[in-house]
């Protein structure tokens, strides 16, 4: 892999940028691997990368049914934060945030991580009390979190209407200044390039159609490009986790729902932080291109259609026009949906399955992007050792019968 730098840029300029090396190879699958990672989104690609880099695995394949980052990695609103309430979540998401902070250098790929701050609004007394409680709990876990008054919110984000007479009055907000956004595609591409450079076979257009299981132990996978043997298999397929679990013959506490987002036409800079409101299910930031990136709520029925209902869009745009009156003059350019895998406690599932050698990393629901490096790192450790990583341990599948749930549904600043 040739290193990207100002010098390589200058050198390639001489040949009119026509001779850039491909960022990753496109190998045919080998008959057998030590570890197969299913799913070529950020979490899967990162898992493959850390397996090669941190745990010295040379014989790893990553299988992707479509193209890299074509699922939820390319469909989210790119928000990164670690302001979660419960200790287990705080540790996991903060682990991710610390990896985000050095990711561009580590991967030699600009993931455009921008720590512009993430604000969560409080609209009523209950919101305000809950937000204060949360801020202090987060600070006790050593994670940065501050409280802003309505006047401070206005100063940070002048386009917001903080009038007490508005439909959704803003009483104040919490802000995590180390939070922000990153370029989602670059995260997938950066991990893919770095994993490939360390010998991982990234195989695209290769859909897993079955799992080979003998005596309760995984032996390989059936794919559209033939059978591949493996000692261990990691499933990182987000919305399709239940489909893979069905192939293995067990059920999961997961339901797949469409979650939508949309972008406006590009305008001059008006918003230099991320603003979220759980109460009205809207989160908004401005991309470097100038588009307002707006996230909505999810539909409540099971769907794999990758498109959501229009009434959700209508609902959040109505709320956003009240919160940010200038939005009423904007045109919305694109709208899309992704399929999120939602668990009953809104926390991910990382670790072992009833099948020996088959591991799962799923259930990130509506907020997986922010966790990408941390999720990938702890899952790689879990796959490498065959035992859950310390930070992944509380997120095991067996918590649903032990009763040790990590209930982030109402607790974290999550817009569900």
């Amino acid at each position: 892999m040739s290193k990207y730098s100002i010098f390589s840029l200058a050198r390639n300029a001489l040949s009119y940028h026509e001779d850039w090396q491909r960022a990753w190879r496109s190998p045919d699958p080998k008959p057998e691997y030590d570890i197969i990672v299913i799913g070529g989104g950020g979490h899967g690609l990162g898992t493959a990368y850390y397996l090669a880099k941190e745990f010295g695995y040379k014989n790893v394949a990553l299988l992707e049914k479509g193209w890299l980052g074509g699922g939820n990695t390319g469909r989210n609103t790119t928000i990164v934060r670690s302001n979660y309430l419960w200790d287990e979540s705080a540790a996991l998401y903060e682990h991710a945030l610390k990896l985000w902070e050095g990711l561009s250098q580590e991967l030699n790929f600009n993931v455009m991580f921008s720590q512009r701050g993430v604000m969560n609004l409080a609209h009523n007394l209950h919101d305000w009390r809950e937000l204060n409680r949360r801020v202090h709990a987060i600070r006790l876990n050593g994670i940065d979190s501050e409280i802003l008054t309505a006047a401070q919110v206005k100063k940070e984000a002048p386009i917001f209407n903080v009038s007490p007479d508005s439909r959704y009055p803003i009483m104040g907000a919490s802000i995590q200044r180390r939070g922000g956004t990153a370029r989602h595609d670059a995260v997938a591409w950066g991990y893919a390039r770095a994993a490939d450079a360390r010998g991982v076979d990234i195989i695209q257009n290769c859909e897993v159609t079955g799992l080979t299981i003998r005596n309760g132990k995984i032996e390989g996978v059936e794919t559209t490009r033939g059978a591949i043997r493996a000692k261990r298999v990691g499933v990182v397929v987000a919305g399709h986790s239940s489909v893979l679990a069905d192939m293995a013959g067990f059920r999961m506490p997961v339901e797949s729902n469409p979650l939508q987002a949309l972008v406006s036409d590009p305008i001059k800079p008006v918003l230099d932080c991320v603003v979220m409101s759980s109460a009205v299910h809207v989160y908004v930031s401005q991309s470097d291109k100038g588009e307002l990136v707006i996230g909505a709520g999810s539909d409540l029925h099971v769907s794999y259609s990758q498109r959501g209902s229009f009434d959700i869009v209508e609902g959040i745009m109505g709320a956003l026009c009240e919160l940010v009156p200038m939005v009423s003059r904007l045109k919305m350019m694109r709208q899309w949906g992704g399929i999120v895998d939602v668990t009953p406690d809104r926390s991910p599932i990382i670790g072992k399955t009833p099948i020996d050698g088959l591991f799962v990393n799923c259930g990130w629901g509506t907020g997986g992007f922010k966790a990408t490096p941390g999720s990938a790192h702890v899952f790689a450790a879990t796959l490498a050792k065959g035992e859950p990583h310390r930070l992944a341990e509380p997120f095991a599948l067996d918590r649903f019968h032990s009763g040790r749930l990590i209930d982030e549904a109402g607790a974290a600043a999550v817009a569900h």
Partner: protein
Amino acid sequence: MFLIDCPWCGPRQQTEFHCQGEAHIARPKDPDALSDEEWANYVFNRTNPKGVHFERWVHNHGCRRWFNVARDTVTDRILAIYRMGEKRPKVKS
């Protein structure tokens, strides 16, 4: 978004309805006899299929009555609508 043919009110917009998840999950007859795994399976585990899903809907902004729907989760096409308590119909996606 789709139209749902309420068995009592006729075709109405989806926004009038609320989906209440997978249908035909029978409450265990003797919960005390269940192991933790069996209880978790009843409370939390779902089929979540890519294809035909049998699910409960309620017409909460209309007649407020419940009914079952068989829907293809890939196309959102509704394949059958039937009353609570009826057996799941044979449908093809």
